[in-house]
């Protein structure tokens, strides 16, 4: 029986009835607590299962040639070097392009657009982009950069990943800047500093570890993105660092290898999956530790 329902029944006078009601309420409570703990356990089991599977299958497939050889046809002992380098290049460039834009937008929302209608619209749109299906970003960049400029290219992949990281940086930059007390801003303005100096030299500096956290989480997110790269940088089985040509990347290579019928390619896919998951999880844990050490 719920607490809101019992007053309607009136106070229970009979102690036997009261005891029975009480024990029933306690039973319900215990059952739901147990189920909730079980749900948490299930969530943890899933995480553990993913990690154990990755280690079991990926560790066996891991050896030095994975990191030193480029992708080769099945049966000829290839590695993942070109895919790893391609991913590093695209993720690094996307981060370099997306971070300043995201920081400016976040700064605009926190420092210039408080309460303004335009700012509300920008915040809304940025939040929609944050959760929008990444495959649509890929289709958009395909329409915008691949079709008109004659083919798949590393630059198109960079653009797609940059669009994905921007809203992540916007969110954290705005949140971190809003944590700064207004008295600090007033003190800086009171000293006669122009507003841009206040923002760059005081607000950004106080919020920097939070913003870096956001950027790290953003890197972790785009490093594993597969769907948008299908339509932009496409993938490449040869060594290529030419950004105007199709470019290999780790997620795309994993995708095509995992779906292949060749056992050695599937094993390479597991090795790549282990690499990428470790990188992503370490970035996440690192980012969280950084944020916590600040507080």
């Amino acid at each position, binding site marked *: 029986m719920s607490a809101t329902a019992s007053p309607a029944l009136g106070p229970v006078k009979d102690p036997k009835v009261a005891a029975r009601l009480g024990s029933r309420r306690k039973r319900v409570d215990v059952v739901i607590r147990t189920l909730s703990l079980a749900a948490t356990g299930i*969530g943890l089991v899933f995480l553990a299962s993913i990690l154990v599977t990755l280690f079991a299958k990926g560790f066996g497939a891991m050896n030095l040639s994975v990191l030193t050889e480029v992708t080769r046809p099945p049966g000829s002992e290839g590695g993942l070097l070109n895919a790893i380098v391609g991913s590093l290049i695209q993720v690094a460039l996307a981060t370099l392009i997306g971070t300043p*834009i995201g920081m400016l937008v976040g700064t605009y929302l926190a420092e*210039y657009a408080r309460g303004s209608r335009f700012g509300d619209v920008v915040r809304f749109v940025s939040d929609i982009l944050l959760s929008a299906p990444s*495959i649509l970003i890929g289709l958009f960049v395909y329409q915008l950069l691949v079709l008109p400029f004659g083919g798949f290219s590393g630059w198109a992949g960079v653009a797609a990943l940059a669009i994905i990281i921007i809203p992540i940086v916007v969110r954290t930059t705005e949140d971190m800047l809003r944590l700064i007390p207004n008295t600090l801003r007033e003190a800086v303005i009171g000293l006669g500093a122009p*507003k841009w100096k206040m923002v760059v030299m005081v607000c950004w500096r106080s919020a920097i570890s939070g913003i870096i956290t956001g950027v790290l989480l953003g890197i972790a997110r785009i490093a594993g993105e597969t769907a948008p790269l299908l339509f932009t940088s496409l993938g490449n089985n040869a060594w290529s660092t030419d950004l105007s040509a199709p470019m290999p990347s780790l997620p795309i290579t994993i995708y095509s290898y995992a779906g292949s019928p060749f056992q050695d390619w599937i094993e390479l896919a597991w090795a790549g999956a282990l690499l990428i998951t470790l990188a992503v999880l370490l970035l996440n844990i690192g980012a969280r530790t950084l944020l916590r050490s600040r507080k």
Partner: protein
Amino acid sequence: MQQATTMTLGARSASGRRGSQLGDTLFAGACQAAGGFVLLLLGGIIVELFLGGLPAFKAFGLPFLWSTEWDPVSEVFGAGVSIYGTIVTAVLSILLAVPLAFGVAFTLTELAPPWLRRPVGTAVELLAAVPSIIYGMWGFFLIAPLMAQYVQPPLIDSLGELPGIGALFQGPPFGTGILTAALILAIMILPFIAATMRDVFEQVPPVYKESAYGLGCTTWEVMRNVVLPYTRISVAGGIMLGLGRALGETMAVTFVIGNANRITTTLFGPGNTIASVVALEFGESETGSLKLSSLLALGFILFVISFIVLATSRFLLRSRLKG
């Protein structure tokens, strides 16, 4: 001498002020332009997807939305099956994920000892960090065989015989299919829903909970009669956020849904979603073909659906965002 110094000082500060005004204008302009750029991005996505899909919309008209045909040979395309698959897998995944997420949030806010809350919370959040393609491989190589061997046969034997709902649990146990896709999706969106629920549960003023405890309520009664009513709008917003994520998930679904263009009544049957069709068929479509245009049209439809869901989610969560 005295006067000269004052004058140069004055001149310098005046030019300094002009310089800083210029700096202010430039910086504020750059920030605002970046904000405008974000709007352009969203506008660009809408316009480009719509323009790309326009030939398909023109060729097939409104029936494109419910036509179940997908025939690349005779160039007849319809979105019916993939829209159905997208919505069914997303809704099923919500049904599976919400009880789990509630359990996690309840544990993290009320049940677990404080020293355990942060590590467990972080672990659940790490589920959100695992890339989609990893879920796909894990689902395909581990979960699908488990489903085929241990989950689907008993369900088919026990529930498949029942009238009515039995139709949901029939067919050969392939392991892959709609139910497996929904299960993987549920695990992927679980951390998003759980994190939102935990955050809003923590915002309930302790006095409310304490007064309920003071009346003799059990932990569950406090959750049901105080915390949930107080946070129900934000909880709905968190669920919508999860739904929005589930609708557009691509790689994991592509691995496990079985990829067949038909509507089946059984949960074990293969199907497809908008995202999985686009990912799989894109490579086989020629530039400028009606097929490619149909895929872009599918993308536009997916965008409209996710936009509505995500906008609703934000609307419901706005009270929380304002703090």
